[in-house]
């Protein structure tokens, strides 16, 4: 998977992971992929719901050593 930008939101508490993700997405072109790394567990449900609501595609997410990584394709 080609990742166009990586956002490190580790250590940030809600709502900052989504605030930063939205800002990063705004700079991408349609079809490009953003990788987001977070440690706030609540981000899983929120990023999933936010992506769906905004029309973006959540391609994949994984959890390794307390870090959640998301790959989101811009609508």
């Amino acid at each position, binding site marked *: 998977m080609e990742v166009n930008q990586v956002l490190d939101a580790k250590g940030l*508490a*809600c*709502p*900052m992971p*989504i*605030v930063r993700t*939205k800002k990063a997405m705004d700079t991408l072109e349609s079809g490009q992929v953003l990788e987001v790394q977070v440690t706030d*567990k*609540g981000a899983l*449900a*929120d990023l999933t*719901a*936010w992506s769906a*609501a905004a029309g973006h595609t959540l391609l994949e997410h994984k959890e390794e050593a307390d870090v959640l990584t998301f790959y989101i394709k811009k609508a």
Partner: protein
Amino acid sequence: MTVIKMTAAEVARKVIENKELFILDVRNKDAFEDWKIEGHSFDYLNIPYFDLLDGVDEILPKLPTDKDVLVVCAKEGSSLMVAEMVSEAGSDVFYLEGGMKSWSSYLEPIKVGDLTGGGELYQFVRLGKGCLSYMVISEGEAAIIDAVRFTGVFTNFAKEKNVDIKNVFDTHLHADHISGGRHIAEATGATYYLPPKDAEEVVFNYTPLEDGLTVKIGASQIEVGALYSPGHTIGSTSFIVDGKYVLTGDILFIDSIGRPDLAGLAEDWVGDLRETLYRRYRELAEDLIVLPAHFMIIDEINEDGTVAKRLGDLFAENHGLNIESEEEFRHTVTENLPPQPNAYEQIRQVNMGKITPENEEQTEMEIGPNRCAVR
């Protein structure tokens, strides 16, 4: 205009005093539908915070101007962000300090009544989770039943009342919330009782809570008597306090009855549940006041904030006590059950002493409603 902090304690007073409040819940839809702050006179608007990142103009017309608006989220951060946006648009607005985590943890002690010889009985209402704990006080001594994990609330209350905690009981091995009983006993030197049939796998020492056991609180006549009442778990035990109250644990609630499946043995225990509710409890005095270990819906809370009702009234009104056919009863309590409580298997492991998660993780495990009942 200004953003004002509201504490869980202040929200609790509004629930108990039936005050109006408009809750703007900014968690995602699933979280809101699963579990929210319940109040008789509360109104709600649920818009996830991530739909408001570009501004709150759309929701401003939906916010009332004649009552307090409280913004609520899971932990606090998002509610503060949204509250600041609303306030910049020109309205006074509150946010919930500590979010739903703090709401889930808050306990309100309410006096249920006086006991023989100057004793008192208190109910600790955990509004956010629907858990009910009890403290019996008499002549400088206290007994605690079904304490939740915020042990400081109980030990501080005992200190305020100038009483020593001598006995700590759990009616059963809880599956929906983490018990504070063992830790209170360790901290105070009190005796910790647990029904042996629920305790086969526990990895700590306890005193067996057997049918017919009687413990005196203080020197006088206040007795706490154990009545074996299986069905929610195989060890579930009720207590008769001072001949006036029956503490039913998770067997009988105000508007529902216990579910037999949380330890994985619904089919085996349904007969025990039937026997307890339809025979053992029928032999008790109808004037006993039922004090359960949970409530599920806000309507179960009385005007004074307590959750309590006469046993005779429950025989007349509680659907779960009025299913004549044994077959229908079996069907009701084993099929079409509500979802199981969040992390209930892990919570049982914690209560057995097998795992000891950190405080933060315990909070996560307990998020959500208790779901111990069948209606």
